[in-house]
């Protein structure tokens, strides 16, 4: 009996493709965000509120992933930015191959930002690098405060946590302070913005976006 030492990443192919995508994004100075949350936490709603507020001269494209239906793409298309739906047909996450395929027809050089709305799932999308600058995790106040403790990986890997639906705080037994301290206990440096579809926190969120967009354009922010 002998042993061959392999020492290779299992998701080697995905990693290679993600690195190629990252290089393209760097060349064209595109900010790329990967939004991840459980189903129903408000990813699409946050994006709707974002597109509504975005300067219409900003060149933004969106990819939105779901197991079935084009509903999200239809919702997001109303603001005039190009949107494509990725229907995974049962697969629980997006991978770099799907991103590459759906971006192929788009002239990347003419865009400033790509927002990827991942499949609603707090587990599987964590393992797949899509070449993004930042993962953003969304937690809504109608979930449990302990989600960061139950699904720590995604909170560890996210730059920013959006605590959504805060307008419902008076009606639900949810402690925003506890949720935030749980998130910080698994990722001390995580940035947290509280939002609602009624407008809470959206200025702060838009400011964060503008800062990151500017940092990518100036070359100050390069994704590793």
């Amino acid at each position, binding site marked *: *009996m*002998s*042993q*061959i*030492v*392999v*020492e*290779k*990443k*299992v*998701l*080697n*192919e*995905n990693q290679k493709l993600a690195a190629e995508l990252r290089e393209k994004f760097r060349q064209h100075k595109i900010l790329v965000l990967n939004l991840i949350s459980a189903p129903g936490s408000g990813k699409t709603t946050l994006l709707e509120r974002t597109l509504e507020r975005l300067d219409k001269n900003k060149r933004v494209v969106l990819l939105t992933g779901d*197991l079935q239906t084009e509903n999200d793409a239809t919702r997001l298309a109303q603001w005039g930015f190009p949107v494509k739906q*990725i*229907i*995974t*047909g*049962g*697969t*629980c*996450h997006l*991978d770099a*191959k*799907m991103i590459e*395929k759906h971006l192929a027809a788009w002239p990347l050089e003419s865009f400033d930002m790509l927002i990827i709305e991942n499949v609603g799932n707090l*587990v*599987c999308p*964590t*393992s*797949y690098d899509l070449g993004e600058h930042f993962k953003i995790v969304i937690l809504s106040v109608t979930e449990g405060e302990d989600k960061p*403790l139950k699904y*720590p*990986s*995604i909170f*560890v*890997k996210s730059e920013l946590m959006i605590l959504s639906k805060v307008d419902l705080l008076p009606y639900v037994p949810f402690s925003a302070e506890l949720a935030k301290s749980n998130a910080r*206990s*698994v*990722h*001390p*440096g995580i940035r947290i913005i509280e939002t609602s579809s009624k407008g809470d926190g959206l200025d702060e969120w838009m400011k964060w976006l503008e800062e990151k967009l500017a940092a990518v354009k100036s070359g100050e922010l390069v994704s590793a």
Partner: protein
Amino acid sequence: MRIATGPDGGYGRRPLALGNATLPAAGVLDSGVWMHELSIVSSVLDQLDELQKEHEGARFSKVGLRVGELAGVDVDCLRFGFECVVKDTHWAELALEIEQVARRQRCPGCNAEFQAENWATACPQCGEAATITIAGEELQIAYVEVEE
């Protein structure tokens, strides 16, 4: 029956390589919901197929994987997915060994290295909150065993 594939190719690549692979009998897979542990198994087998080309004639008896606590992979699910996928393929006899890797942190302040217990990552020596992850993100093929 062929393994079902997603229209966007999430699992569309491996089944082609498997040729006459059959759908596992387990009901959980008939639901059409494919958790990513299956896609991970597929990636492992793809890489083993490549490795087999470099070691023609060698009989691989076991593959060793290394899975970190932060990898986002459920080890039981991975084992189950492995059994389901290898069955009725040329990898049916392949054993699987999984080494789980705990999350380890390094403190940039005092250079202490420690295992993060219960996701608490503050430095136990000096209290520094922002420590750096040095292990626990692995999702690797560590080795294959070859029968002579």
